[in-house]
């Protein structure tokens, strides 16, 4: 997994609440057995018309937003299904940071397994950052400092320390958990006695 340390980009703002995983990546693209190649189908139904032509009013279809690495969105981003294809599609498009006032739990977790930083800040700050999207000005995210820098201002955000460490170091969760095999074995042995039906 690629490390996440600092990121600078002109943010793309999609001012909609409850952007669900079906919007992020519709079902027909879940039939892949790979993690890559989903970027061109990100936000498919908002991005392409029924004949498959790009809809030029959609923000990500226009420069410089087609190269945005930071997405600003309305609250409850990523609600709906558990499909990891949603973060895979964002990542494949080039988005490594999503900023919203709230995220759905499963999507939020899935981001950290893919080197994507989801940042929670209040609605007012999102409005403020959206001005930078409009003006096509860069903002910078510094994970180590837990800070968003814009213009001559900055704002801080919260993140669990374990999740922060994983992104900063690009750690493989499975490798870490496999180091706990003795604990897992001990748990299983005890369970075999107390709950033999499992």
């Amino acid at each position, binding site marked *: 997994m690629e490390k996440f340390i600092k990121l600078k980009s002109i943010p793309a703002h999609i*001012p*909609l*609440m*409850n952007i*669900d995983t*079906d*919007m992020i990546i*519709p*079902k*027909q693209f*879940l*039939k*892949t*057995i*790979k*993690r890559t190649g989903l970027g061109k189908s990100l936000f498919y*139904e908002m991005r392409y018309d*029924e004949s498959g032509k790009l809809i030029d009013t959609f923000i990500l279809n226009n420069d410089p937003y087609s190269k945005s690495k930071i997405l600003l969105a*309305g*609250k*409850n981003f990523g*609600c*709906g*299904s*558990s*499909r*990891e294809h949603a*973060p895979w599609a964002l990542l494949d498009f080039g988005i490594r940071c999503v900023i919203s006032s*709230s*995220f*759905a*739990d*499963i999507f939020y*977790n*899935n981001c950290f*397994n*893919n080197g994507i930083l989801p940042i929670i800040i209040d609605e007012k700050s999102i409005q403020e950052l959206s001005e930078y999207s409009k003006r096509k000005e860069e903002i910078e995210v510094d994970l180590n400092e837990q800070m968003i820098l814009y213009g001559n201002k900055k704002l801080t955000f919260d993140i*669990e*320390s*374990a999740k922060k460490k994983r992104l900063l170091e690009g750690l493989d*969760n*499975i490798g870490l*958990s*496999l180091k*706990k*095999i003795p*604990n*897992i074995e001990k*748990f*299983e042995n005890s*369970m075999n006695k107390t*709950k*033999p*039906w*499992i």
Partner: protein
Amino acid sequence: MSKTLYDKIWDDHIVHEENDGTALLYVDRHLVHEVTSPQAFEGLRIQGRQVRKPKLTLAVPDHNVPTTDRSKGISDKQSKIQVDTLRNNCKEFGINLFDVNDKRQGIVHIIGPEQGFTQPGTVIVCGDSHTATHGAFGSLAFGIGTSEVEHVLATQTLIQKKSKNFRVNVNGSLPAGVTSKDVILKIIGTIGTAGGTGYVIEFAGEVIRNLSVEQRMTICNMTIEAGARAGLIAPDDKTIEYFKDRPMSPKGENWTKAVAHWKKLFSDNDAKFDKEVNIDAKDIEPLVTWGTSPQDVSPITGEVPDPEKEKDKDRRTAMYRSLEYMGLKPKMKISDIKVDKIFIGSCTNGRIEDLRLAAKLLKGKKIASDVSAMVVPGSGLVKKQAEEEGIDKVFKNAGFEWREPGCSMCLGMNEDQLSSKERCASTSNRNFEGRQGRGGRTHLVSPGMAVAAAIKGYLADVREIN
């Protein structure tokens, strides 16, 4: 110290805990399907890792299998690759698979309980958000991403941070025509689609206790639509009775031990909940959704809301977008909404009790001439049971198509989809834009309400069907 049911199951599964509360949680049961697992198995192969406990995983293809004649195999190339890949992965890693033509094949959240693979007090995960369904049996069950599927396969554990405790009490008794689907839609409409984010919701109260276990599954199934990853209902005598003699249920001495454990699974009287909501059953009517979020609910006797009356600007914008997508005008009567299709099925409402209820209302009647309707049983065993009871004939005689089991039009990954602007009364769980097909318009309803709509050709009140 007093504990909630969630606290008890959580504590019982901690393998290791970090100082910041991040826990390595043991997973007792893992369900796998064809869509969210290929990349997980591929990950294992790349790293040269094994499946730690193959017997604790059960696999079934359900999301993209055809619901029509399966004798010729799967014609869609990509779907076929996914189903074949699942078969090969199960073979390679020694995982039990109910394949497409197995009579036990069905929707993953229906076959788990049906087989007794699901059990009270266990931690159950699956790469599917509707894993919450299994919470109806007092198991901590939630959806996970594919990276987490891989983690569970390799370690039989999951890294988790504990959620907060939320209890929803549904008090009183349900009015005529109101079912558990209406109860959960009412709850989502009340707390909102993000109302449960960060929480595990325990459902309690007289109404919940009086529901059958299958009806309880409908409630827990849609917990994720309120933002909570897991829903829980304390097991009781009905739960224990349900699991007796299921193929994978504990047997003999283990049964006695298991039952003794299950009887301890309840929230203590003075357990503390971080949030609590009370709902009075008498305030619940048969409901339908009018918008593109499951929180957009209205009584069937009501009207499409007017966004102008909404004070929150973002919410108002979302409402306008929903109404435009749904092709509806503010203030029109819900019962004036004409439907094109009816879908009865899904992990929300594809069980035998759902089909019985629908068939009872439908018996001797015909669907409206300009409506097409289909029933997709939740599993091969549900289908078989229904056929033994003659339920298939009731549906077929009324004009419904009687299909093979799977997820089908709930998410339209197979051929069962809505066309653009087609309107469907659906017993499924999500009314998102494009969910049932690009441009398709979904109204979430109970099975009884789906039958009412099928007969009238409009969204209709189940209480007027007799």
